[in-house]
């Protein structure tokens, strides 16, 4: 069953340009993205900074303005709902951000932070009991309830943030780089917690991350973003073992492997140059300015996502395995 359905979503921001701010421009942070997440599924959104992955998550949460397109949650179009109906729906959708330090109020006890959504949304049962239950669920000791965030380690703080996100029994959690700010020896604890909670509570995750080793482990499906568009998506196993788009291939081969005997592997694709400005994206394929396989025709038409295998799509004219076939 589809829980979240995003159709042709665009999030554009007007900006002033030039040294003195005299010009006007539009940042096309998300520029025509269609994605869906099933119940109990983890969809990972990967890409480099500035590709629009966090903006996409924010748009789903109502934290970034939708310029065009629709976002449907459980069959309801978020754009047409009344404010009261949206507020009810937000119980079903929660978020865990990267930095647990700035996500928690330093002057509140952790119990009070976890209780806040329960108070706002009028929890019907006993709030202290629910806080205790949540703390135990995420592996925190209930004796720590009166402590302030600064008395906890980074991993424990992220557990508090997760407990707060779980307070209202959500169905979808948007995890925006949830382990990037944590020490390496702590990351696997939090990833294991997220995987256990998903199984126990039937959660869906939109998992936004730049860490591909983590994504390979935790995701059911992966969508690769570049300059505001999805260039490839599909089952995690297919995208990782058999990437079609040259950008995905470069991204995969850039992952540093913890194995010194493979450092000189010859299959590495080193990209030249930097991400173009989203203010002035290249014509045609957004990746063509850095693509080792680009041809003249790539400047002319923007490639659409086309089927490459079961559930696997990519937007590349050169690497398309099914040229001339119907668009996905």
């Amino acid at each position: 069953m589809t829980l979240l359905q995003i159709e042709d979503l665009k999030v554009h921001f007007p900006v002033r340009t030039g040294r003195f701010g005299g010009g006007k421009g539009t940042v096309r942070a998300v520029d025509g993205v269609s994605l869906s997440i099933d119940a109990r599924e983890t969809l990972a959104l990967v890409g480099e900074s500035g590709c629009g992955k966090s903006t996409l998550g924010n748009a789903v949460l109502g934290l970034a303005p939708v310029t065009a397109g629709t976002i449907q949650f459980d069959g309801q179009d978020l754009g047409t709902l009344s404010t009261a109906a949206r507020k009810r729906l937000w119980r079903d959708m929660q978020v865990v951000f990267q930095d647990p330090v700035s996500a928690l109020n330093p002057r509140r006890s952790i119990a009070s932070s976890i209780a806040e959504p329960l108070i706002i949304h009028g929890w019907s049962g006993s709030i202290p009991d629910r806080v205790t239950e949540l703390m135990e669920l995420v592996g925190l000791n209930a004796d720590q309830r009166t402590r302030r965030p600064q008395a906890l380690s980074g991993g424990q703080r992220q557990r508090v943030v997760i407990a707060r996100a779980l307070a209202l029994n959500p169905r979808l959690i948007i995890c925006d780089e949830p382990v990037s700010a944590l020490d390496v020896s702590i990351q696997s604890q939090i990833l294991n917690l997220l995987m256990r909670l998903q199984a126990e509570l039937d959660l869906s995750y939109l998992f936004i991350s730049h860490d591909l080793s983590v994504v390979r482990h935790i995701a059911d499906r992966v969508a690769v973003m570049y300059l505001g568009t999805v260039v490839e998506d599909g089952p995690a196993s297919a995208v990782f073992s058999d990437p079609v788009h040259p950008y995905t291939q470069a991204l995969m081969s850039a992952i540093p492997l913890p194995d010194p005997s493979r450092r000189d592997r010859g299959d590495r694709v080193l990209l030249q140059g930097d991400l173009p400005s989203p203010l002035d994206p290249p014509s045609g394929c957004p990746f063509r300015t850095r693509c080792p396989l680009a041809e003249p025709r790539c400047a002319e038409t923007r490639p659409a996502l086309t089927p490459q295998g079961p559930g696997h799509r990519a937007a590349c004219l050169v690497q398309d395995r099914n040229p001339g076939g119907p668009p996905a």
Partner: protein
Amino acid sequence: MSLLDLSDLAIQAGELSLVDGVTLDVHPGEIVALVGESGSGKSLTALSIVDLLGEGLRVTRGSRRFDGADLTPKRLRKLRGQDIAMIFQEPVSSLNPLMPVGAQVAESLIVHGTASESEAQSAAIDMLRRVGIPDPDRRATQLPAELSGGMCQRVMIAAALISRPRLLIADEPTTALDVTIQAQILSLIRDLTREQGTAVLLITHDMGVVAEMADRVCVMYGGRVVEQGAVHDLFAAPRHPYTDMLLRTMPRPDDPPKEPLFAIKGSVPGPRDWPSGCRFRSRCPRADAACTERPPLQGDGHRAACFHPMRPT
């Protein structure tokens, strides 16, 4: 003979011990990775080499030698920016925002009097080209804010390498960058230092970066070196339980997806909470009564500070 020699180095903030007895050497042309988590003391160790410890921090014990002689403040003034160069994690905040990047690259040549202003400027443009900045003549006149993060990091590398230093200290040089840019920058550091015979002390928390770059590795935990050795030995057969577990927590391509990952229990203790004896013992499954004593770094070449190593030393 080693180029850089740290012996029994200790750093304190007041009475609080932050680095406790680090011994480490770097040979000419070699890349040595200093790896550890936050609070392990890896960055302080590196900063102490160039005398850039912040206020309130001081070296309380041990020696720092470069090219066979002690690193006195007077000697460092001559060496810094010439024989010893440094690059940091945040390229944007490490560059002067009001100075054209070309002039920043040229600066060390002018300050050390090795070139005239115009020679230095053309050397800077040449160096910017070598680090892969397109259109270097124009870019040299721009301010850091007009360049991307990846380009600013190239500028910093150009500024560090223009004087052909003998030692480059790189503190998390790619942590703020994206993976495809990280791969470019790492290969640039590797190629340029190899070409110039520069030794590199690479500070990182990322075992993937270590495996890509290092000849030798020095693992720190709780202000001490817990294991050091050649990169292939250390990855193939780690001896200290911390190194072993750190490598096992990393998701690997051949792991079954969605299965629980190996996790080290507990959290990284701060310097106020370090246990006596072995500082990893509060999280170590092999710890016993013996570990309340401080384990010495033992072994020949590949060394570990553990009474119950994974493999005999």
